[in-house]
């Protein structure tokens, strides 16, 4: 008769000493296999008297259970250790850099971004986006807009001209986006609400002027639009565009051939340390020109100025981009230097919306 206690002691010691899963399996076979030591004990139960079985049965079955449990535990521990060893060997250097993905490298030019911002604001007010050609006729760029031939205001535009055609007519590069207003009025009956963003050209170059630049103009024509509405639109636009709660604007009488009355608009700002901030300070910064559409312009577009009325305004897209985002110089806008574009440009999915905010 084997000493059960001794067997248990030896078997459990063997399990504990098993260094790997194969060794554990050897112990299992030696104990619980067909001819294993524990199995042999179990077999003896059949030949016992009921009384002996009653005494020995629980002891032997208990032995078997404890050995099984110990084997399972040992196997799991060894598995854990093996996994740990594998994981340790699989360690990677997470500090290695990954490549900047396309979404990190791509950029939207500030001009495109600002046009999207302007579109979001005026789109909400029901303004459509009107566009027209850059190569324009003298008639649409000047004459229809009430610039008399030879008038000094015409000369102030530093116009780029093309060679005259066989009839002596010369086309030009539009000096403002106002011809788009004319095209709109000629093509469409009031009520009209459009903004006209686009590329414009003047033969001029210095730190704040480039021969090509961008303007956005707005036009409202109906039977009641007046200066009060114009003021409101411009105030709302400035608050929304510059993302400030309040803005103080100053309307000064001025002159443009195509509006009457005409005004220039200043926006209150502070200029601390070279940084312009709106909604504070006591400095003024000129930001746009505007006015009631001149009766001659309405007439030139086939509208009766005693029936229809409206207003228009215009401002530089590049300029308001510089004011909002702080570019000090206009010229790099068109130099395609990736250092500038990466710095001042916008991430591909920075889509300006009124609900999510124009800028992030």
């Amino acid at each position, binding site marked *: 008769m084997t000493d059960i206690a001794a067997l248990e002691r030896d078997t459990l010691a063997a399990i504990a000493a098993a260094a790997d899963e194969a060794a554990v399996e050897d112990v299992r076979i030696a104990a619980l296999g067909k001819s294993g030591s524990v199995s042999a004990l179990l077999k003896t139960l059949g030949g016992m008297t009921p009384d002996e079985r009653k005494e020995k049965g629980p002891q032997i079955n208990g032995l078997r259970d404890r050995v099984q449990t110990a084997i399972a535990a040992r196997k799991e521990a060894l598995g854990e250790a093996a996994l740990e060893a594998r994981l340790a060997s699989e360690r990677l250097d997470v500090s290695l850099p990954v490549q900047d993905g396309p979404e990190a490298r*791509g950029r939207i030019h500030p001009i495109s971004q600002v046009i999207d911002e302007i579109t979001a604001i005026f789109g909400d007010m029901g303004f459509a*986006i009107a566009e027209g050609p850059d*190569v324009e006729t003298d008639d649409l760029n000047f004459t229809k807009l009430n610039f008399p031939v030879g008038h000094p205001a015409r000369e102030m535009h530093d116009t780029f001209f093309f060679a005259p055609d066989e009839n002596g007519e010369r086309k030009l590069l539009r000096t403002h986006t106002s011809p788009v207003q004319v095209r709109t009025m000629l093509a469409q009956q009031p009520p009209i609400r459009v903004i006209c963003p686009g590329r414009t050209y003047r033969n001029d170059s210095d730190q704040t002027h480039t021969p090509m630049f961008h303007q956005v103009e707005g036009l409202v024509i109906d039977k009641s639009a007046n200066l*009060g509405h114009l003021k409101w639109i411009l105030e709302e636009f400035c608050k929304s565009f510059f993302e400030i709660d309040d803005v103080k604007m100053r309307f*000064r009488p*001025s002159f443009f051939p195509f509006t*009457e009355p005409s005004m220039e608009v200043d926006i209150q700002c502070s200029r601390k340390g070279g940084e312009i901030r709106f909604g504070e300070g006591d400095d003024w910064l000129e930001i746009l020109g505007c006015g009631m559409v001149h009766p001659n312009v309405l007439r030139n577009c086939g509208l009766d100025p005693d029936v229809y009325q409206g207003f228009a305004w215009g401002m530089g897209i590049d300029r308001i981009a510089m004011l909002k985002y702080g570019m000090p110089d206009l010229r790099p806008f068109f130099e395609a230097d*990736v250092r500038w574009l990466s710095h001042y440009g916008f991430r*591909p999915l920075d889509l300006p919306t009124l609900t999510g905010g124009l800028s992030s």
Partner: protein
Amino acid sequence: MKFTTSWLKEHLDTDASVAEIAETLTRIGLEVEAIEDRAAALAAFTIAYVIEAKQHPNADRLRVCMVDTGAGEPVQVVCGAPNARTGMKGVFSPPGSYIPGKKITLGKGVIRGVESNGMLVSEAELELSEDHDGIIELPADAPVGQPYATYAGLDDAVIEIAVTPNRADALGVAGIARDLAAAGLGKLKNAPIQPISGSFPCPVKVTFDLAGDDKKLCPAFALRLVRGVKNGPSPDWLQARLRAVGLRPINALVDITNFMTLDRNRPLHVFDAAKVQGNLTVRRAKEGETILALDGKTYALTDEQVVIADEHGVESLAGIMGGEASGSSETTTDVLIESALWDPLNIARSGRALGINSDARYRFERGVDPDFARPGLDLATAMVIELCGGEASEMEFVGDLPESPAAIDFPWSEVERLTGLDLPQAEMKQALTSLGFDVSGEGERVTVAPPSWRADVGGKADLVEEIVRIAGLDRVASTPLPRIKGEVVKPVLTVLQKRTRTAKRTLAARGLVEAVTWSFISHDQAKLFGGGSPKLALANPIAADLSDMRPSLLPGLIRAAQGNADRGFPDVALFEVGQIFLSDEPEGQLVAATGLRRGTARLEGTGRHWDGGANNVDIFDAKADVLGLLSALGVPTGGLQVVAGGPAWAHPGRSATLQFGPKGVIGAFGEVHPKILKALDAKGPLVAFEIHLDALPLPKAKPTKVKAKLVLSDFQPVTRDFAFIVDKAVAAGDMMKTAQGTDRALIANVGVFDLYEGAGVEAGKKSVALAVTLQPVEKTLTEAEIEAVGAKIVAEMAKRYGATLRG
């Protein structure tokens, strides 16, 4: 336009401060550009008394002065001026003060061993004149200790305003005063001008040699002789006034004309009568005539210019500048004063053609008050007699004054209609009358006659502007603009506008950086890209290399990429979405979306990397960009053909044209042709694409937004691989289409998963490995069914391309 406050007060009775005046000017449309407050700049300089001036012990030319500055103990000052002497009064500058004429801040010093605690200054040192011969000497009654600027009347701010082209009337101080008085800032003095009768006929006659239409070149001409004048420096007050606004005093006669120009917007000209031969004729210049003008330059004239000539020839450029030959001088004793009207357009053109920017041209091209031609001459005559003596002739006057601007039928309601501002009639009427408008009639509609100096006012809207600018634009209340219909806003963008935006965002999301390049490029570049037509060449380009409208965005982008490479950034990916010009008609302007990749600027990353990479870009990067773009734009690419060979800018063997049929070309992609790179002084590797957004098919209009029904198979797809050996010239794309076509119902997808040439494959051949995915619809396919499809593909490939399965 510059003036001083004291000058303004000659015309305006007001107690307003400089700040109030400036604020009002800007408010009524005469925008203040600068205020130069000399009182502030000269505040440190005070009147002082020289108690004693004695010889400097160590220097012959210096004196040591004890100076009473009015501020306690006398101060010792070393002075080098020859006129420094005991008992004189002068101007003292204490240590720490800034001397504008020397651009230094004065310190205490020791000069040749003697302490000096300040300075007695000259006019030049205060930038009051160029006189540096000695220190300023003041009369004995000058109050010691007082600021010199106040005493000398220099505490007079110089205000500079911007005058818009319509406000010629504000180019004279009197006109500015009228505007300010109308705005309630004081009372306009408006002293009457006495007509001068003259004691003898004007001996010089004026004739117009201007016929027909040319009569408008000089509607009227007034002339008067003043004989027996004594010309010389003008009085101090006049010199000071002119100097304050930046004019150099010349002599009394010239200073009077300059004064009249600035004070009354009435440019005049004076001739030395002794130098004028015979009578004067106003006529067009003759080709080849020249004139030595008062600016010392000789101008060659054409018949575009109007001149005043005598028997010698041209004496004056009408309305622009006088001639040197007949100009006045210190010796002038008989002077002819001219006050004329000229055609603004002709003056503008002539001034531009000759390149002369004179005060006279500036005013005549904007329009002077025609009715003031005569009073202006009388006023100038009176000034000449007052300052230079002499005896005036009668006025010689030829021509006719133009009619005053037409009266306007004006309903008062127009103001509220256009501005929303409801003003009392009395206030509106007051604004107009104080500006010189004549308002006649009563009630809701009146007749308003603009004054002769407001030729710019021609209609109701102009009157509205006058009324609101005087009333104050700040009184116009901001009023919300109601939505056209009270509803949620409708989409406003056109398809092209939406595609333009989407194209930009898509390309940026593919790692390209948006550039905005010039719309004009050099003629040579334009020609290389199919442009360069004379109709699209600027007549006056700003630079020779910015002369032609671009037919493509590529030249600008290629140059931009090279610019970045030259700055040390060779691996750039750029795009632009913008206008290109195929003709000078509106239809010839298209929107192109163009991108390029240079060096190793691939989608996955740029440059060398530990995980591989540093591969140069190739045309498949460009192809992926353009197809990705089309996909993002929602353009159905089912019918899109990729035809080998691209435009002239591309490598012929490494480019393709994208088209929906031969007439539906939308763009191209490829490697940039080495010749193009060379011509643009650029280096590769450089791949690019360009598509025309206008050329893309429009989305189909659908009645609802419902998407097509989704049909999903219950059975798993099966993929089978085939490696074919074919001639190198066989296009993989064709093989894919052929494979797809063998069983359209079952074959869901065909891909190329391997491409091989080299060892093991016969020369001139290549191995193309296709992965064909079968998607069963009704039941799981049996192995036999799959084999059957495979056999069909193999047979078709053999038939079409002579393809064999790779062993």
